[in-house]
């Protein structure tokens, strides 16, 4: 039994500095509330003093904090996200551009759904969500943005559902998905991030990615914007390293701008390039591709494109050694860039097995 001071001698100012009193008026703890109610009954002469103190406490408590819930949330998330990039050492003041660079360093994977023929959205169709996991379904027709416990961001498409634990396990971050979503995964070198869908397991080691898989679709597509992921069949416990080539039936490793289509009936993987490859985001503005070419040798142009998009481009450097290109192609999609460049040097290109093959002739 806790011994309380003799509150009969207390004035309002003494109450206000007393933690047991504050447990009642500030936090409204039920044990404290009852205790003080009793006390008032026993000491009616001190009742006014106590109520004055309570009144003062309420006025103090009601002083507004000029911080909206939204701002608060933002700041907390920003701080938490920043810790992922902190060494266990003292760093000097953090600046905004520095923080932005961290985000750019993240990578992306996208999964697209080929046939948008959907049955009525019936909420969660996730199988066997572990007990205690949180499930969120997007029944609206808008994108739904949300945060995972590790600070990673999910953009959930309409008629999609995700489930995840309230806190991720120390060794792995796992989530379940039905439908379509983009994951902006916070980099954690040691803790892989895995998205489980009905028939596929997409695993990303410290990156940012997006996953789509609908129960109704016979085919599922995973595509990668940047970074590297492995896609295996659900239940396949082999390490991503064991998974190599397309069409092997085991699974595939995807890099930037590649995608794989998984045919659930035939259980086959077909690897290809995404329909509209995007430049891979780079950490520094200096390394960013300008897509401006001025009398640039063709080989250099293709090398720069390879680097910018992280894709493979095969060409015969000897044949093209006399070809140069002059063009400003910023903001033009890759395939249009290739068409323009090839047209100006009399070459053609085709996409074969996730590679771009350029066939040209001597320009001299």
């Amino acid at each position, binding site marked *: 039994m806790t011994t309380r001071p003799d509150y009969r001698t207390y004035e309002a*100012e*003494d109450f206000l*500095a007393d933690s047991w009193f504050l*447990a009642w008026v*500030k936090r409204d703890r039920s044990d404290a509330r009852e205790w003080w109610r009793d006390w008032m009954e026993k000491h009616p002469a001190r009742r006014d003093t106590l109520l004055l103190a309570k009144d003062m406490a309420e006025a*103090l408590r009601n002083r507004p*904090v000029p911080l909206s819930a939204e701002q608060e949330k933002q700041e907390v998330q920003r701080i938490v996200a920043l*810790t992922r990039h*902190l060494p266990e050492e003292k760093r000097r003041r953090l600046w905004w551009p520095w923080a932005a660079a961290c985000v750019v360093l993240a990578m992306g994977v996208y999964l697209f759904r080929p046939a948008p023929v959907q049955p009525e959205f019936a909420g969660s169709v996730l199988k066997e969500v572990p007990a205690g996991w949180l499930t969120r379904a997007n029944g609206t027709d808008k994108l739904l943005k949300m945060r995972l416990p590790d600070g990673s961001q999910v953009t959930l498409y309409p008629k999609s559902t995700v489930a995840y634990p309230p806190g991720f396990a*120390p060794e792995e971050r796992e989530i379940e998905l039905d439908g379509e979503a983009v994951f902006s995964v916070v980099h954690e070198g040691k803790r892989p991030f895995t998205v489980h869908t009905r028939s596929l397991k997409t695993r990303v080691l410290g990156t940012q990615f997006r996953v789509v898989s609908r129960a109704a679709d016979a085919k599922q597509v995973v595509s990668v914007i940047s970074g590297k992921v492995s896609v295996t069949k659900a239940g396949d416990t082999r390490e991503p390293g064991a998974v190599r080539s397309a069409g092997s039936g085991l699974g595939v490793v995807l890099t930037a701008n590649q995608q794989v289509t998984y045919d659930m009936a035939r259980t086959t993987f077909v690897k290809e390039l995404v329909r509209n490859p995007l430049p891979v985001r780079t950490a520094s503005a200096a390394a960013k591709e300008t897509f401006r070419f001025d009398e640039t040798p063709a080989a250099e142009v293709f090398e720069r494109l390879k680097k910018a998009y992280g894709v493979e481009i095969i060409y015969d450097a000897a044949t093209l050694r006399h070809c140069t290109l002059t063009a400003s192609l910023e903001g033009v999609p890759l395939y249009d860039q290739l068409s323009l460049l090839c047209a100006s040097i009399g070459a053609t290109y085709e996409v074969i097995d996730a590679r771009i093959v350029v066939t040209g002739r001597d320009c001299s």
Partner: protein
Amino acid sequence: MLKPDLRRSSPAPRDKTDETLLWLKFREGPQEVFQELVQHFYRELYFYGGRFTRDTDLLKDCLQDLFLDLWVYRHRISDTPYIRSYLYKSLRRKIHREILRQPSAGRDDSVTFDDVSSQEITAEQALIRTELSEYQTSRLHELLAGLSDRQREAIHLKFYGELSNEEIADILDVNKQSVANLLHRGLSRLRESWPTLLSFVLFHLSNSLNR
């Protein structure tokens, strides 16, 4: 940077069991707990820090710095039994340092606490829901304005921070008796003026009821 004297913070009995549990969990490392911890303290510390400066960018920077320090040094500060007083003290030091670094800073090397001027009330008004509490708040600010800086800060640390007198003494760099005096004089003064505040509120209330 972390003074060893933090380690002998007074182990006054505290009913904030949840907070202590959170802190114990955090010392073991998981990042999820860090988020909980930041979430738990952010608003309260923002309120405290906001008493020193109206520069919200500076305030947010200091808070960010404070929590990132906590993350980076979590192994070293794990001996601190009570995280609460550590956070208040560190935030205060960071804000003071930043304010005094600015060229426009006070000539006399001092930082004001809780400068309850009309400007602040206006800024806050958007967040105040009812006419009554708005009135109450502005009256309360008038009363608080009648106290000294140190009295206001001691009351803040006691009432909002719920720190022990020893912890407040450590933060304000005075002895424990001075804290007791600051609190007692400050709160007595508030109490003496309180009936006026109350009657004004009642008058105001009946006025609006008659309308």
